[in-house]
């Protein structure tokens, strides 16, 4: 394990908030986020340091890790950009693996909102290392009617699943 040494302004995201078992987002982590000025490119940025447990046998960042983070950037980041505070389930994602990343690289993910309708959110997502793009993704997420799954309800639902 190498030191995460996050770039300036990044704070570690606590996905579990005291839950007994770590969820997937914690398990694959650590993941960090930075919030910037509204309307700028850095309004929401997710970041992580590539660790050996995120890699494939060839020593490159595993595609599964890239996709997991891009999915999160699309729903959490995209939701943040349009001011939605609910869980947005992903409907479709397309990933283009344009370049590799290696252990020790600091990867950042940013979402761009293409369009928001009443029930869908279309975003483009890029993962970058420095100035270089490593993944281009396009995402369609569902905007649930009403409150949908709020995070408080989500926690309850998870506890029920665990006990059943």
């Amino acid at each position, binding site marked *: 394990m190498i030191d995460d040494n996050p770039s300036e302004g990044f704070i570690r995201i606590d*996905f579990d908030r005291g839950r007994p*078992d*770590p*969820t*997937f*987002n914690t*398990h*694959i982590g650590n993941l960090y986020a930075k919030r910037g000025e509204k309307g700028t490119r850095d309004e929401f940025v997710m970041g992580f340091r590539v660790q*050996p*447990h*995120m*890699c*494939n*046998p*060839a020593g490159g960042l*595993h*595609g*599964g*890790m890239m*996709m*997991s*983070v*891009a*999915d*999160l950037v699309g729903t959490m980041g995209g939701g943040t950009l349009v001011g939605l505070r609910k*869980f947005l*389930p*992903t*409907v*479709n*994602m*397309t*990933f*283009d*693996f344009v370049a590799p990343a290696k252990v020790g690289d600091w990867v950042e993910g940013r979402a761009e909102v293409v369009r928001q309708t009443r029930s869908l959110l279309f975003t483009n997502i890029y993962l970058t290392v420095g100035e270089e793009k490593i993944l281009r993704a396009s995402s369609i997420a569902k905007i649930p009617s009403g409150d949908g*799954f709020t*995070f408080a309800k*989500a*926690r309850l*639902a*998870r*506890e*029920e*699943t*665990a006990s059943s």
Partner: protein
Amino acid sequence: MIKSVSKIPPGFREITEASGFAAANGPWFEKIEGRRVWRGFLPGPQHANALGIVHGGMLAAFLDSALGSVVWRAIDRRCVTLRLTLDYLSPARVGDWLEATGELVGQDEHMVHVRGRLYGPRHDVLGGLGDFALLSTRRQIPVRS
């Protein structure tokens, strides 16, 4: 753990040579019949999101890896993913055995196109279409998991 083991269908063998991301998110299992392959895993709490269903990223990673294996078994060529398009059809529950398989739908000397699906005991979970670049047959790389 006895309970988990009993959920693994006959014919599936644990992939023990996994490392890095695959090992951290395993164990993953594989069944091979001739040139066809099925991959399977039993999602636990570490694969779940805040809703208690299996994380989309985990499903994506698993199907991607399964499709790579499908190509390897079908034409004996290693490959890397160029593009993956996924449709999230329905949620997958923690504790349900999940399986993925696929088939080649197009091929030339540099690329293959693969259609894949990931399904649980009740219904399809994820549909996918992958474009993979074939690696040179001269290139030696470790087994991809």
